[in-house]
């Protein structure tokens, strides 16, 4: 990025080659729509290029890049009338004792991370992800999807690490509530 700031076109081409897949993926997970994701991803790179003259490496480049990406997608979602609070924090599906109404996997089940995510389930998951409040979705996607630590997510979102921890937990609760039947099938 510093080389690009100094006028190297090749530096930007390298930067683009390294990160464009991650940017498109992030935009896709945040918007849930291919054309919206493409438009947002293009805008993200435009903003990165425009911001180059004032770029100062106070954090990892990827942290800065995801900050730009998140703000861009957030603005995009606001423009398309997302209010960011579509889902109540405590969902109606949560049982009184705090345990989700999910059919429990047996002890011999596979590792849950090895669950086969068939196309239909992935599509349901994508929709459920899109119903999360934007702040919860961003925290969950950055941590679980893009591999950022809680601390890095906190930098991107401009919140405390504790807030990130809570948002990710809430995101899990809401996703489990919506996908419980699918996960137990």
């Amino acid at each position, binding site marked *: 990025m510093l080389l690009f700031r100094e006028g190297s076109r090749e530096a930007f081409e390298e930067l*683009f080659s390294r990160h464009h897949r991650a940017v498109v993926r992030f935009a896709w997970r945040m918007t849930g729509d291919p054309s919206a994701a493409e438009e947002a991803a293009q805008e993200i790179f*435009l903003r990165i*290029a425009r911001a180059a003259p004032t770029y100062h490496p106070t954090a990892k480049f990827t942290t800065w890049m995801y900050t730009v990406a998140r703000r861009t997608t957030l603005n995009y979602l606001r423009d398309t009338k997302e209010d960011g609070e579509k889902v109540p924090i405590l969902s109606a599906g949560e049982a009184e004792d*705090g*345990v989700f109404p999910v059919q429990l996997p047996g002890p011999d089940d596979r590792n*849950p991370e090895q669950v086969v995510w068939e196309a239909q389930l992935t599509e349901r998951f994508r929709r459920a992800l899109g119903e999360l409040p934007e702040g919860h979705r961003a925290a969950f996607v950055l941590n*679980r999807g893009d591999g950022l630590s*809680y601390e890095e997510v906190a930098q991107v979102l401009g919140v405390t690490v504790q807030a990130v*921890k809570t948002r990710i937990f809430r995101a899990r609760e809401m996703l489990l509530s919506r996908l419980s039947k699918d996960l137990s099938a």
Partner: protein
Amino acid sequence: MGCRDIRESISACVDGEASPGEAAAVREHLASCERCRVLERQMRAVGAGVRQVRGSVPDRFREEVFARLESEGALPKRKKVDSTTWRWVAVPLAAAAALGFFLLTPREGIRGPESPGPATARIETSSPPAPSPQGNGSALSAEDREMLAMLDLLEDPEAFDATDDAERMELLAPGNPADSPNPPRGGRSGV
């Protein structure tokens, strides 16, 4: 610690972000709570789910991004060879070519009197020498004089540049003829 109070810590444990004390408390709780063990497994599964939502890079995404960047001047142009650079390449090449041409060309005018060449050659060498301010014109053939003229030209870069050809040279990519031949280095405009 009750189930409701420890679920957030279970989520942090799944992400590898729990403190040592928090992780110990979770392990202790899970050892005695079947429902939370199930919840922990589901939390792992739902974390894996987000990585299944991948999307794909659209066709021509790169071309469209770079076209937009170039249209608003946010991307430096590919480097061109400006006239100064071209001069430093062209002058040595032209000088080498001239020297080779000079060495490989028969110089009958110099050999003159000793040459057993044809009569026409003798007639040429016996003709009056062309007027020369340096007084050595009698030793040079027409080709030699042409070569010297070329070398004089090369020693005078201003005369060389007068053709303006170098100004239009571009090494890597065709550009807009209206572009400045000497773009500012290392800078970006319109940002």
